């Protein structure tokens, strides 16, 4: 690693928003050819700092030095001008245009200053892709390429504009594990060519895999900058959260009882009417967590929707506590023993414009004591909410706060509180920690294990292998809408990975 003067220095950056100090005298530096990870929980000030660097926010105090020269960034074009490029979490690409068109957008090569020079554009894109060893087809339309490839287009866009400092904002959040590995390969090539990368993340294992140095932010302050060598997940988590965090869930071996959820030969179609779940059968018994592992889009969502009554299966049966629930509506199933922590809490789990009291009543508002003959009794809902907020340690709101005002982790706590409060026999959790930070993940995991120990049957669907492996008592691998393997908790990541990508290998649990 080059040890010369930093290509970028942020000194004493302070950014205040009314009522909040988002960055409090943060120092940060980036050396040539390194990947420097910026680690912190949601709301720790990572994005604010990068937006300051990218010219989207003006800092209240502090200075920015690029290659030793103080710079005033007042817009992204200033940042691009000094070689700073940013790849946002949500891509800014035009779906109907080609890769080349998107890359040259705004700086198009022209013929007679009027017409787009298509050939020159493609030639230049090919050239730059070759330089950095990117495999990409400049003619392909954005809408037809994968998310991972779209991300590469974003990176190329920045490089095309002459960036030698790249900011990647949570780049792996949208990627499959395989695509993330490819991204890391690309980043290594880039740094070898002399680029410098700021890698924003809250995932510890990724940071340890790709970063040369790590800077941890917590509640707006820089806590520490440390080299990767010698850093451990536990140490980083402690710096991030400010206290000891249990990354590995400690739990007793399960003592499964009678089967509470039985799925038999289930066939489900997806939204386009194509088979998504093809003849799936399994059981979840009282007091065990069954994890469903798989690459996104292999029928997990449709399976959960069918179990919770949100889609009608083509055929097959679903039994809850021995009772045939196949023909019951979503509400009947919720009322008779299924708790559902939905995959997308903001779209399904909560009504963001409702207060927390209204949200905790989402299933039971029609029942005594929360209403009587059609009249709501808001006082009862508020009392329920107050109790649950306390019991589940929800911070940042009272029963009358709108759900949208809470952080993601606290929103998820509200969802879990509501589902668990109804004392379900079967708890179905879809990606329960998606987008949450370490502290909140710990809480959710602990709670799922507690619910298991209460004697509930827990069905856990997650795209995070680590999560599946640390929580599940049994693991089912779903591929192409079929269960292709069942494993015990001591299976290796490699074994699961092979099964998840279609390398069928049956193993005894």
């Amino acid at each position, binding site marked *: 690693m080059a040890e010369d003067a930093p290509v970028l220095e942020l000194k004493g950056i302070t950014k205040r928003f009314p009522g909040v100090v988002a960055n409090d005298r943060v120092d940060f530096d980036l050396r040539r050819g390194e990947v420097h990870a910026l680690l912190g929980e949601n709301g720790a000030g990572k994005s604010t700092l990068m937006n300051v660097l990218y010219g989207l926010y003006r800092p209240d105090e502090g200075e920015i030095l690029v290659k030793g020269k103080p710079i005033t960034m007042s817009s992204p074009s200033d940042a691009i001008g000094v070689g700073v490029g940013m790849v946002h979490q949500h891509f800014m690409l035009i779906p109907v245009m080609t890769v080349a068109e998107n890359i040259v957008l705004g700086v198009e090569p022209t013929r007679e200053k009027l017409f787009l020079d298509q050939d020159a554009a493609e030639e230049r894109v090919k050239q730059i892709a070759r330089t950095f060893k990117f495999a990409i087809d400049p003619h392909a339309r954005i809408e037809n390429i994968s998310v991972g490839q779209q991300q590469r287009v974003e990176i190329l866009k920045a490089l095309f504009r002459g960036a030698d400092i790249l900011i990647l904002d949570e780049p792996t959040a949208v990627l499959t594990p395989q695509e993330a590995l490819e991204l890391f390969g690309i980043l290594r090539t880039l740094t070898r060519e002399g680029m410098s990368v700021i890698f924003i993340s809250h995932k510890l294992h990724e940071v340890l895999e790709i970063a040369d140095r790590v800077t941890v932010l917590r509640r707006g302050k820089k806590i520490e900058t440390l080299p990767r060598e010698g850093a451990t997940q536990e140490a980083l988590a402690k710096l991030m959260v400010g206290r000891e965090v*249990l990354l590995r869930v400690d739990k007793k071996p399960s003592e499964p009882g009678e089967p509470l959820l039985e799925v038999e030969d289930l066939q489900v179609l997806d939204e386009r009417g194509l088979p998504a779940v093809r003849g799936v059968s399994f059981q979840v018994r009282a007091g065990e967590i069954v994890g469903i592992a798989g690459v996104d889009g292999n029928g997990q969502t449709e399976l959960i929707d069918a179990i919770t009554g949100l889609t009608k299966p083509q055929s097959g049966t679903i039994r809850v506590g021995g009772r045939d629930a196949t023909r019951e509506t979503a509400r009947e199933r919720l009322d008779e023993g299924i708790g559902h922590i939905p995959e997308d809490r903001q779209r399904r789990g909560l009504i963001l414009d409702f207060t927390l009291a209204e949200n905790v009543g989402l299933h039971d508002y029609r029942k005594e004591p929360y209403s009587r003959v059609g009249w709501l009794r808001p006082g009862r809902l508020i009392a329920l909410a107050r109790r649950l907020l306390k019991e589940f340690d929800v911070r940042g709101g009272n029963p009358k706060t*709108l759900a949208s005002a809470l952080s993601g982790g606290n929103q998820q706590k509200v969802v879990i509180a509501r589902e668990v409060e109804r004392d379900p026999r079967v708890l179905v959790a879809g990606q329960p920690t998606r987008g949450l930070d370490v502290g909140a993940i710990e809480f959710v995991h602990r709670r799922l294990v507690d619910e298991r120990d209460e004697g509930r049957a827990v069905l856990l669907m997650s795209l995070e292998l680590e999560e599946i492996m640390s929580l599940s008592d049994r693991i089912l691998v779903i591929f192409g809408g079929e269960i292709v393997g069942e494993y015990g908790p001591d299976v290796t990541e490699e074994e699961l990975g092979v099964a998840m990508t279609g390398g069928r290998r049956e193993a005894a649990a």
Partner: protein
Amino acid sequence: MTVTPPAQTPEIEDTYSLRSTFYERAGGFFVPFAATVLAFFIGGLVVLITGHNPIEAYRAIFEGAGFNWPYQWLTGQDTTASGRDLQQTLRAATPLILAALAVAFSFRCGLFNIGGQGQYWVGFIFALLVGTHFEGMPRPLHVTLCIVAGILGGAFWGGIAGFLRATVGAHEVITTIMLNWIALYVGKWLFELDGPLQGAAPSLPRSEVIDDSAILWIIWNPYLHAGILIAIVVLFIYTLLLNRTTLGYEVRAVGFNPEAARYSGIGVRKNYFLALAISGAFAGLAGTVDLVGVKHAVDQSDFDTNFVAFTAIAVALLGRNTAVGIFFAGLLFAGLSVGTSSRNLDPEIFEPALATDLATMIQALVIFFVGADLLIVYIWRLRRHLHLRRTQPAEEPAPS
């Protein structure tokens, strides 16, 4: 679990959520208010260009709407003229408020009901049928029957759009507009010369007049009928229905997030139907109150000139779909039109012909600025930002 007690201080999150909740609530009042002020300001500039004094003109419109009545009444002045003006304003506000609720209620379910005018007419015609029959019935009963008929008529017409949305997914904006035209042309056909419901006068395209027993009580001589009281009661019912009943809870849940409603087992389609039917009931009531309070009959030409339910869309928008907001927005719009009518405005100060245009313009500007609420918030922030810079060039106050 070996976790030290959480050391996190919740202050930052607390202030954030409190602030956002405050903005949510304050924004609901602030933006419409600022929109109105801006609209009047720009209207004032236009008055200035036409060579009149905007303050004088606004004052004349204000008095023409009778809004000076409370002041005169309190100070013991002669209130005859201002009282009559105010009565007209309140009378004009009544159907505006009721028809605005038709827009507001469906809006809370995520639907845009543009069919208020059609629902208004169907309610009107149903009430007319009841009002022209049952001669000699006791007045409270006859009036009540008319109102029930009008509500059912409006609910029927709104319910058609709701049914189509719920079953085949036909978009309510399209269907309610089509239903408007159907109601309008059916109405014109019913009351045309030799039409099926033409009244007794053979040469007039006009309906029968409703019986005396179906006419609403006058609560303030000579103009003001009890409709405004009905509107106020209905405003309360609207708020209670939305916020304090399970039906309203479902309607709002579907309006805010249909996917979350579906997840919890709430019948999204059922609520689409109910919301549009109930919406129609509000508009039907607006028509009924106009019939039994003011018109007592209908001319065929009324179908071409009465567009009160369209103005009511603007009232709902300005009132942000809240009962209080709709009440004041209704008064504002009614006051603007009454205050600029040639009968009430002194032509020395501002020509009524111009004033009517001014009223329309101000109404349009209000809607423009309410729609552009982000613009208003931006202007407000900019102002505060400049202010801060001027007074505290070095340091902003630290957050407490």
